[in-house]
């Protein structure tokens, strides 16, 4: 989801008996539920996959600040502004926890940024959609953070120690994000004026399918899943999580008197789950490959921040080096 299409480097899942002794011992550690730590031996493909996945996750947290940052100065009340500011600041924190986890695998922070800026690494497709009205802040908190939680909770048990620990911290903080979003929706969709109700429905209409896309392609097209699941860096299939999200979100929408923009949506007595329409996967492929409504803006904003911050990064480092020199000289 935050890591939607992580390409795997492995050649598919090998049976234990076909593995080299080293690979096999490693897989058995994972099967026993042991955590893999930075200095432990690990297969190259495990390391590479994790760098891609954690990097993509980190980039999503950072780029994810932009659509919400867009509304901080225009929040309707001081309280909402403080809430949103705190939420966006949390997302920066999430990005930082995750970059550090990725760095334990031997990639540097600067390399990760460079790969984002040149398009070699991706971030979640969801952040390439615009946030047009205040109601979008409600929809994003409720649906986008809601979908993020659904994916991140099981990742607290992932096999790589630093990643699992980052997830624990993140999950503790996420629930406030979703609740503040739903709170906005209650004010607008349930207690609001006719105009506000219309805005809430409109935001819901625009974010429903993009939120479903956050879980990644349908299982039948998800080529990279099996190896990641064997390594326990992915804990559930895309469709499992998507179904869980639909099942939880539909009653929440009902409570808000909002209509799910899906005519086929129906509770299936037999399965005990909602049947729903799949999102438009062509649109998904389009957005993920750079052609969504905001891809250019988002990436340009990140590159600009990096460019324009370089004198601060360099200046602070130079000053610290100078201070250290003076200290040595004085001793």
């Amino acid at each position, binding site marked *: 989801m935050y890591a939607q299409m992580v390409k795997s480097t492995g050649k598919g899942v090998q049976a234990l008996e076909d593995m080299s002794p080293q690979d096999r011992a490693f897989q058995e550690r994972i099967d026993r539920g042991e955590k893999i*730590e930075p*200095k*432990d*031996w690990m297969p190259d493909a495990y390391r590479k996959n994790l760098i891609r996945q954690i990097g993509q996750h980190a980039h999503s947290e950072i780029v994810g600040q932009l659509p919400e940052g867009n509304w901080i100065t225009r929040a309707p009340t001081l309280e909402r502004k403080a809430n949103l500011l*705190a939420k966006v*600041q*949390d997302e920066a*924190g999430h990005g*930082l*926890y995750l970059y*550090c986890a990725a*760095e334990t695998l031997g990639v*540097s*922070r*600067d390399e990760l940024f460079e790969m984002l800026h040149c398009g070699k690494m991706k971030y979640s497709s969801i952040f390439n959609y615009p946030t047009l009205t205040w109601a979008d802040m409600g929809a994003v908190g409720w649906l986008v953070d809601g979908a993020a939680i659904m994916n991140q909770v099981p990742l607290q048990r992932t096999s790589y120690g630093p990643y699992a*620990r*980052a997830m624990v*911290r993140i999950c503790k*903080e996420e629930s406030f994000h979703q609740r503040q979003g739903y709170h906005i929706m209650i004010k607008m969709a349930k207690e609001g004026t006719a105009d506000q109700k219309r805005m809430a429905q409109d935001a819901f209409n625009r974010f429903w399918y993009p939120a479903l896309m956050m879980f990644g392609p349908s299982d039948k097209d998800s080529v990279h899943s099996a190896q990641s699941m064997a390594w326990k860096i992915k804990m559930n299939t895309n469709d499992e999580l998507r179904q869980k999200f639909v099942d939880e979100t539909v009653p929440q929408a009902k409570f808000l008197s909002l209509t799910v923009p899906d005519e086929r949506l129906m509770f299936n007595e037999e399965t005990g789950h909602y049947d729903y329409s799949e999102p438009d996967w062509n649109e998904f492929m389009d957005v993920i490959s750079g052609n969504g409504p905001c891809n250019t803006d988002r990436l340009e904003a990140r590159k600009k921040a990096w460019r324009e911050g*370089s004198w601060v*990064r*360099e200046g*602070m*480092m130079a*000053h*610290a080096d100078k*201070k*250290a020199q003076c200290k040595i000289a004085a001793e």
Partner: protein
Amino acid sequence: MTKSKEWPLWEVFIRGQHGMSHRHVGSLHAVDAEHAIKNARDVYTRRNEGVSIWVVEAENISASSPSDKGPLYEPARDKVYRHPTFYDLPEEAGNM
């Protein structure tokens, strides 16, 4: 543009409210110790998680290596008599 030097990595330890030891919470980049403490405050104590912060530059940490697991920790394994449950005492002795 010349490639600038990346800020060094610092490990962050925080002591919570209730008299526990400082605990490792994560890491961050900063130019020096003072800067690392400021950043740690923003990144790791947004919700009153702590009352004291330690930072230490990651390259100054010496760590045991995973391959030493055997020699380091195996010897403790067969010394069950270091645990109180090893000693069976009669109920008459009361709580001990």
